[in-house]
């Protein structure tokens, strides 16, 4: 019972987070590249309900920004400019899920006012917006790469486990090669083998391919183990005795027994691969500006003045925690439920 709660909790959290990211255009107040050059490194905008005279408002509002008198280059709230927060407002145009054009935003403030939910970066770009749009890149990279490496793992593991003999030997020795390298170094080596300066979307595809290709060995090993025991089950032996072909046996009887492992592996690999993307991009080997990704949001923290003066630049990194938490919770619950391999 408790386990079911955990799984559902994780799934609801995951659905919510992915929904936010998928409909980034709607939930983000601005466009992914919208800049406000006048307001670099503005702190997160506080949302007020009580105004300067102590009067309570049902509609939340924000204050405009003015130069901070004490700290040069910093901004402070200006309580003379009041901008109410409106919901379902018309704003910059975007495409819903990349297809249908729309101008509707979940929230926003009217023109001269700006709402920086997570503060702004060095170009005055709103970080919550960047986080949502960046998630489209990072989560897509993680999901596709995980699917790719699990797919490879299923193919290799099923072949190795089902046929055994020299096929098993060759495939698993190859896998050992991949397991014997520290994965970040391996990732670097494969990244180094690919061109450095190409178009952004190509870098994105390359990144997915690199991350996905490097990680197939562990799922392959686990799936081979399941297949090895699955093919000895009585009903599989019986089906074989009735003259079922190998392809039929694999498809109908053996692979369905590996679904548990596959699901758990995907839930474990996605956060790992998102982190791989974040790390590579952070080090300048992944997708670059102006394409937002979770890695490039963190990359500005490599500069000391950003790191030490603007605490809100850490917020996107902190927002990664619920994402990872949801995936790990799902993996944990699946694992308990399916009683598969230990973490």
């Amino acid at each position: 019972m408790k386990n079911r709660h955990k799984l559902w909790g994780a799934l609801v959290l995951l659905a919510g987070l992915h929904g936010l990211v998928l409909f980034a255009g709607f939930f983000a107040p601005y466009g992914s590249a919208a800049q406000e050059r006048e307001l670099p490194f503005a702190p997160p905008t506080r949302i007020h309900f009580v105004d300067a005279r102590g009067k309570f408002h049902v509609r939340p509002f924000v204050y405009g920004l003015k130069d901070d008198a004490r700290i040069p280059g910093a901004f402070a709230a200006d309580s003379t400019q009041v901008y109410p927060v409106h919901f379902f407002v018309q704003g910059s145009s975007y495409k819903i899920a990349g297809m249908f054009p729309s101008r509707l935003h979940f929230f926003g403030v009217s023109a001269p006012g700006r709402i920086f939910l997570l503060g702004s970066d060095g170009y005055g770009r709103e970080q919550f917006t960047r986080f949502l749009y960046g998630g489209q890149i990072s989560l897509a990279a993680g999901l596709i790469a995980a699917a790719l490496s699990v797919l490879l793992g299923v193919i290799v593991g099923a072949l190795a486990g089902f046929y055994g003999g020299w096929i098993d030997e060759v495939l698993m020795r190859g896998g050992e090669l991949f397991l014997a390298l520290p994965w970040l170094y391996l990732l670097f080596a494969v990244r180094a083998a690919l061109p450095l300066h190409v178009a952004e979307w190509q870098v994105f595809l390359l990144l997915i391919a690199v991350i996905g290709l490097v990680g197939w060995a562990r799922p392959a090993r686990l799936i081979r183990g399941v297949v090895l025991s699955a093919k000895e089950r009585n009903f599989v032996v019986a089906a074989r005795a009735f003259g079922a072909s190998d392809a039929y046996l694999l498809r109908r009887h053996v692979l369905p027994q590996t679904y548990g492992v596959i699901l758990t592996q995907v839930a474990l690999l996605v956060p790992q691969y998102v982190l791989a993307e974040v790390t590579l991009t952070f080090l300048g080997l992944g997708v670059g500006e102006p394409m937002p990704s979770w890695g490039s949001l963190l990359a500005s923290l490599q500069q000391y003045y950003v790191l030490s003066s603007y605490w809100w630049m850490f917020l996107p990194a902190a927002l990664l925690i619920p994402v990872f938490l949801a995936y790990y919770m799902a993996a944990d619950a699946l694992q308990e439920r399916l009683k598969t391999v230990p973490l």
Partner: protein
Amino acid sequence: MRYLIRRVLNAMLLLAAISAFSFALLQWAPGDFFDAMRLNPRVSSQTVEGLRSKYGMNQTLPVRYGHWAFSVLKGDMGFSFSYNSPVGPLLWARARNTLLLTSIATLLAWLLAIPLGIWSAANKGRWGDRACGFSTSALLTIPDLLVFLVLLLLAVRTGWFPTGGMISTGFDNFTFWSKCKDVAVHFALPAVGLTVVTLPVLVRHIRSAMVEALESPFIRAARGHGIPRTRLLFRYALPAASNPLISLLGFSVATMLSASVIVEVIMSWPGLGPLMVQAILSRDVYVVVGVVMLSSVFLVAGNLLADVLLFVSDPRIRVE
């Protein structure tokens, strides 16, 4: 003994295969170090071709691999274009720093994880164990990068620790004692960072191994005989639980090395990580191959060490 010899042979073969694989992979890469020169109008294409043939880049892959393997045996490990020197000496200095950092962090992490894991297993189900489980899961979900960056922020804000590097300026004139102190102060942040990110996995594994050992009948019998709790935990249960933990030691080398790359870049520790990133960006192929090889040597050595320890600690393997 046969077991050990087999493990060593296996490790050697694996390393040879890795070297061929990574070498081929990187040679197959489009573009090379001299590409940047081609863009320069003042460097003629003959010069570039001359340089390429001087470094043997127009030969076939097996020939180049042979040359490279020979230079590995000499200790050169190929030639770095951007440093204009053999790769070997470059690597040794960096590898020493990485090894120093990772081995101290490994030691710290295990010294913390073993008592924590045992304590957690001994109090299974009570609030202490739950708190421990909760905090390890919480730590697991925090990205490594964030941990390192927050530590760096701490150093910048408080000024208690240096924010990067391994030694202060004027290191050569220090007395031996202040030299040690200087390095130790520089150590603190990266070592703590590495320990924090590797700790949760270790604690969880140690706990589950200990829980399994504590539930076995011989422990119940020993408890029935009135053997004191501390002795029960450390003398009876820990050796029984040690087998998976020794394999874990081998695996933890890999995680440690990967995490070390990030910490080295963020805290500018002069180890293999920054060297590797620079080499990738400048297409310095032999340095990349060298670092990859070296990292896998460390990993394989870690696994071999685990095998040897297993051989020593588990009589079943010796008999086999």
